[in-house]
């Protein structure tokens, strides 16, 4: 999980550790608290995407399948 700052359309949100948010009863959570989780996970994803290429596979599948679609006239 993450600890950093994120900007959202809802508000300026400080992304604290989300571990404690995960352990809050969800009925009592505000939209902003839920969004902190979302923002932190988005940052995790960005960090993953910025890792070396071995973790991000090229999209061979789409290219190959598009050929298949063309063959069928779709």
């Amino acid at each position: 999980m993450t600890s950093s700052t994120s900007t959202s359309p809802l508000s300026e949100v400080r992304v604290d550790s989300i571990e404690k948010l995960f352990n809050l009863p969800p009925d009592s959570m505000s939209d902003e608290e839920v969004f902190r989780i979302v923002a932190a996970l988005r940052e995790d994803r960005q960090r993953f995407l910025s890792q070396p290429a071995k973790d991000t596979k090229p999209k061979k599948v789409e290219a190959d399948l598009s050929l298949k679609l063309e063959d069928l006239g779709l």
Partner: protein
Amino acid sequence: MSEGNSSFSKVSLNLQLAVDSTSIGTLMDCPRKYQLSIIQGYSLREESVHLTFGSLYHEALETYDRAIALGLTYDKATIRAVRKTLKRTWNKQLNRPWNSDHKEKNRYTLIRTIVWYLEQFRRDTITTIKLADGSPAVELSFRFETTYRSSWGEPFILCGHLDRLGELDGRPWIVDRKTTKYPIDQEYFAKYSPDNQMSTYDFAGRIVYNLPVAGVIVDAAQILVTLSRFERGFVPRTAAQQDEWYHNLGYWLRQMEQYAKENFWPMNLKHCNMYGGCPFRFVCGQTPEVRQKWLDVKYVKRIWDPLVVRGDI
């Protein structure tokens, strides 16, 4: 044996009349596996985490799709989906989060996968089709009579659930979401052609919604401990392929009735070790007189009734 399961005939014991892709697919795998899992309702205790995870994942994305169709912004729709999942994975009695005891499929990886999926397809080129009543075509349960009948004249019904009907480049597609722990590569998508589930969905889209469905778009998520990956694959079907699939279906329904009449469900011994091993391999490997005891000990009962709205993952 099939008591309490509304998908079975009231006339012919053990004959399932309302079938979905799971039922037929299991029968195709192995008639004995079908008898144990679909007719008798046994499943391994640890299988439940995959069912729970898959159901919650689908629920969250359905919530998101509906929110977007209602005009909510991307962020607000995401919050709605995540909030719903947080609630659904909260044990109110114990006042603590759901603990799956599974390193890849747990509350954290579930919510991470939802958020990452929505980010991946944030500017989705697929738009959700709206039904005649204006509601978004998401999480659709379908059922319709086939032209096939049992020996007693009862119609066989095909039923199931579609995740989403979407439009891409002016053509309607079924959108199906999958989760897997395996790499999503060309080989992964190749397994869907031919595939009974995909053909069932494609067929249902054409019949029930009377749309010229181009096929199924599979949004696949690979879920690992530290990350979730996504790929989108296209699984087209031609009219001739559909005719062939429907003809096949008729054969399997007749075969199913034959097994039911004889009340004998043979083992397909070539299937036992496929896909990591059949969940009933252990039981079938025992001498027949002790199998029931092992079923009672190692398995739980879970009725698989395709007529109950929403069931598969």
